[in-house]
């Protein structure tokens, strides 16, 4: 029997997918601004965030309506409650992309402290984890979600390398380098946090599909 609720759930999934595409684009634009130290692209990325904020509210409202009106159970209940959490994580990822764009504004007009080597690696990882987390949601793919979760350690490792290098090789040796080092430190932190939110989404996808709680239980993924 075809259910009215199925149409509603398909609509909700579509809204989240649209939001996911916008969030991926926000990361892409912020990174583009960083690579070229491009003020114009950074400002546009910051201004576009409002659209994603509105989508989060719209998705939350839709989920509340579905919970109140359709009394979903089991897989439907997990899908709707996890959709609410995923929309929050997606919005936070977009905010972090905006934070990167803000750091770009702080960096423009000055020469870069050093050529960027590990930040692009962490950037690629953040982009890939976000993209895979969204794909895992769209395709309801717990295996892909598991891979995303396991990559989070690599994100932590890269952030630590970047922090150590900036602190020890630049700030400690030449405190006058601090104003140019701090935005890069923060960018590494923002990128690592993006990976954390992608991990949250992946954990929610596994719960949604398999009803397994892997959050705070990394051993379950082995």
């Amino acid at each position, binding site marked *: *029997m*075809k*259910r*009215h609720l199925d149409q509603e759930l398909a609509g909700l999934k579509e809204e989240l997918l649209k939001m996911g595409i916008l969030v991926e684009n926000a990361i892409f634009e912020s990174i583009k601004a960083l690579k070229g130290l491009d003020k114009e692209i950074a400002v546009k990325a910051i201004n576009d965030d409002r659209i994603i904020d509105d989508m989060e509210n719209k998705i939350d409202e839709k989920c*509340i*309506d579905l919970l*109140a*009106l*359709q*009394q979903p159970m089991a897989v439907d209940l997990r899908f709707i409650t996890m959709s609410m959490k995923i929309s929050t994580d997606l919005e936070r990822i977009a905010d972090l992309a905006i934070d990167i764009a803000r750091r770009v504004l702080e960096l423009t007009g000055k020469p870069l402290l050093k050529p960027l080597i590990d930040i692009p690696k962490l950037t690629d990882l953040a982009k890939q984890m976000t993209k895979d987390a969204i794909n895992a949601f769209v395709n309801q793919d717990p295996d892909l979600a598991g891979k995303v979760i396991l990559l989070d350690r690599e994100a932590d490792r890269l952030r630590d390398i970047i922090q150590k290098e900036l602190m020890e090789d630049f700030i400690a040796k030449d405190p006058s380098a601090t104003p140019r080092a701090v935005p890069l430190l923060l960018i590494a932190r923002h990128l690592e946090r993006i990976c954390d939110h992608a991990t949250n989404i992946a954990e929610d996808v596994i719960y949604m599909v398999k009803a397994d709680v892997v959050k705070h239980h990394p051993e379950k993924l082995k």
Partner: protein
Amino acid sequence: MQNPTFEIKAMRASYGAKEVLKGIDINILSNSVTAIIGPSGCGKSTFIRSLNRINDLIPNFHASGDILYRGEDIYSGDVDVVDLRRRIGMVFQKPNPFPKSIYDNIAYVLRVHGFDMREMIDEIVEKSLRKAALWDEVKDNLKQNALTLSGGQQQRLCIARTLAIEPEVLLFDEPCSALDPISTAKVEELIHQLKQNYTIVIVTHNMQQAARVSDHSAFFLMGELIEFGKTQDIFTKPVDARTEAYITGRFG
């Protein structure tokens, strides 16, 4: 805003000296589902049964105020009540098929309304059963006695019977209260489909059902309309404290 099918102003209704509706103002919108909810004795059944004047059959019933159906006062003297009830069909709490075959349940109604061409009747029987999402289950057994169907099938047969005479409005008075959850789900899905072509008013004790099937909800209490609005608003952010108390189960 959709056009209202019913415009109801200052409607009062009583059984003898007992007033059960005390001045109802409400518009029922076309091609949407309006649910009437409220505790027992709030007047919701009296309200829905006044919309096609089926309450006229109860001695001492009296209604006043404006009940305009497509702009026409249905309680004015020159209204053809039989025609009114054809245009405003009703499905009741307990399925009430005739003790006849599935086919004859619908054909009989058509004959009463003056159809006598066999081919045309065959066509309408099939069309009505399809609209009521019952055709696939009964098409090979149309001669079977309707009373052998399950409760849910009987109720959908009653809906098909109502649809056969092409009403414009469907009134559902607790249509699922005698049905199991699967049959209830089928009737609810059917209501979702039917609202494309009909204006639907449903009275239900089951608030969750009102939430699932309706676009607008009206909360009645002791003969008064307390709150009316979009169903999603009524069930997530009701304005009146009494509505909130009722839908959260804190009532009384």
